[in-house]
């Protein structure tokens, strides 16, 4: 310090009190307007309860499911097509009936939710990671990098996401040896859905970053010589996260539906590990022969899941937009 000969190194106000420590993140969160707006919106409360119940069902499926539908030893083909709320040929009770193999529909839904939520959540996180990094880089640097990233995003957004996912899925199929395809299917699905959704995040983050980087608090950090990556992570990112959270919630619902669509088309998860989409695909084969429950219950679950997550996203968008208050 002394070699700089900086004026004012000795500050005379020795006895001044220490600045207090900022309160913890939890106190901060509970005091926020978000919590207030949540408690004032009954639709959001109901949606969040439904979403929470479905997530709990998925997480604790092995503990609470009445049967293990994927253990061939416990299956009895004679129990097939048992209608809902009835006792089967072998004397077991099935609340939501069984499918053609005698698997309990309620249990398959719980296990299917697990796969759907896992794929949806990881795919959204993957899309967020790519989209946020590319969006920050494009918005902060501008110029050629920005142009290249955003043109790629534009091209990708001009195709339906499902088409991109199908394409990526097909390429991955060709690259992975057939013996490992079954194990890798879930991961390929996550990557395919993630890569088909990153552009939304990149666009939003880029726009918000371009606004933030012009502000003087970023200039102040630049004058001090703070590394651009530190500026992006500590200064810019917290200020662009609002819109990102909204897209992430709605994106989760979209990813779940996308996964269901791919599985319905038969290119998603393998039938040994069915998701809600796979269950719906199986169910629609029996719709016209009168076994409606095999299709209906997984479909209702998917609708409930997508709808509740979507409603949460809508609420979050309004809650974070000060102009709508």
């Amino acid at each position, binding site marked *: 310090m002394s070699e700089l000969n900086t*004026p004012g190194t000795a500050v005379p106000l020795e006895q001044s009190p*220490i*600045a207090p420590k*900022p309160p913890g993140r939890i106190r901060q969160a509970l005091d926020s307007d978000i919590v207030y707006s949540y408690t004032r919106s009954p639709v959001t409360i109901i949606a969040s309860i439904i979403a929470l119940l479905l997530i709990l069902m998925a997480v604790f499926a092995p503990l609470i499911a009445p049967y293990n539908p994927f253990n061939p030893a416990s299956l009895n083909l004679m129990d097939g097509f048992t209608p809902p709320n009835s006792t089967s040929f072998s004397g077991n009770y099935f609340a939501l009936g069984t499918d053609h193999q005698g698997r309990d529909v309620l249990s398959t839904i719980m296990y299917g939710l697990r796969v759907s939520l896992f794929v949806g959540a990881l795919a959204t996180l993957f899309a967020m990671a790519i989209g946020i990094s590319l969006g920050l880089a494009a918005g902060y640097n501008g110029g050629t990098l920005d142009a290249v990233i955003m043109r790629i995003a534009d091209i990708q957004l001009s195709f339906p996401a499902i088409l991109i996912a199908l394409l990526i899925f097909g390429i991955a199929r060709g690259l992975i040896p057939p013996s490992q395809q079954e194990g890798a299917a879930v991961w390929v699905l996550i990557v395919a859905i993630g890569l088909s959704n990153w552009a939304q995040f990149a666009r939003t983050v880029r726009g918000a970053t371009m606004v933030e980087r012009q502000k003087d608090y970023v*200039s102040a950090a*630049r004058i*001090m010589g703070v590394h651009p990556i530190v500026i992006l992570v500590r200064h810019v990112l917290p200020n662009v996260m609002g819109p990102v959270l909204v897209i992430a919630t709605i994106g989760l619902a979209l990813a779940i539906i996308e996964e269901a669509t791919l599985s319905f088309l038969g290119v998603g998860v393998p039938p040994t590990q069915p998701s809600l989409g796979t269950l719906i695909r199986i169910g629609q084969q029996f719709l016209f022969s009168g076994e409606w429950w095999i299709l209906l219950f997984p479909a209702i679950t998917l609708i409930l899941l997508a709808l509740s997550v979507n409603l949460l996203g809508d609420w979050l968008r309004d809650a974070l937009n000060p102009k709508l208050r």
Partner: protein
Amino acid sequence: MSAPLLDVRHLSRRFDVSKPWLNRVIERIPRVHVRAVDDVSFEIAKGETFALVGESGSGKSTIARLIVGLLKPSDGEIIFDGKSLARGLKGAEARRLRRRFQMIFQDPFASLNPRWRVTEIVAEPLKVFNTHKSDRERRKRVGELLSLVGLSPEDGAKFPHQFSGGQRQRVAIARALAANPEFIVCDEPTSALDVSVQAQILNLMKDLQAEFGLTYVFISHNLSVVRHMANRIGVLYLGRLVEVAPSHDLFARPQHPYTRMLLDAVPDVEMTGRRRKKVEGEIPSPLNPPSGCAFNPRCPFANERCRIEVPALKPWRGQPVACHGIEEGRIPDGPAQPIASVTAP
């Protein structure tokens, strides 16, 4: 005078304001550049306040951003304490130099990160320059700084939006002072504030200057503020310095016709009854600057030479002025009298 703390030599900055490449190709238009700052030179001694004044678009803020390194100069040199800043700073040398200068911004609503608490904001330079290692040391220093600028250490727990504009500017000053800089660039620090608060902030800045021996570059369009703060004043017109003079001389004996026009435009609160000429015309577009002296379309003394030849900044009675009329002795002396007499009824 000893070696200046800051020496700006022939500083220029052009901005590329061309349309996108595709438009240029299709519409067959060339690239377009704006000369925001054009061949500006000045020196600032340690401990003084050098003010840059000028209308909107005269390049004041661009010079501020060039000095602190937010923009790279197109031409020229910025020498801070014998070391050139314009070449770009690197490594440990950069860290040492950066610690010695800071900037205070115009808009205190944009210069503080809205998601950070005041303690974190003021402690940022302490962290970046690693002057205070532990969290406790840093919070102690933040407490000192907040008291120094007239806030309470308890305010550190608040967010910027919980403060008024003047208080926010105090926080910004505390952040600027945190790492003990010697040199502070103030880009219109009071123009976003209420008049009643402006004086408080200006006096605070003067007190801090006296206490810590700070050197200020003070950028403003407000001549009364500049008169209060500055030792020396540089008048900018369309990116060029037209006159540099000690504060007292500039107000007592303005030379350049533009300076006279600016002084005439200052509201006369004391009602001296002095005759005045209203400011005529506007600053021309820097995209299409007039030939010769940039001020010639608005100058009552302009002649043929002024419309052709760009005047250089030459010493005239000890203070540099860029005007053919002054140099030739065409323009009479005296505080703004010639201009006032033009409109005398």
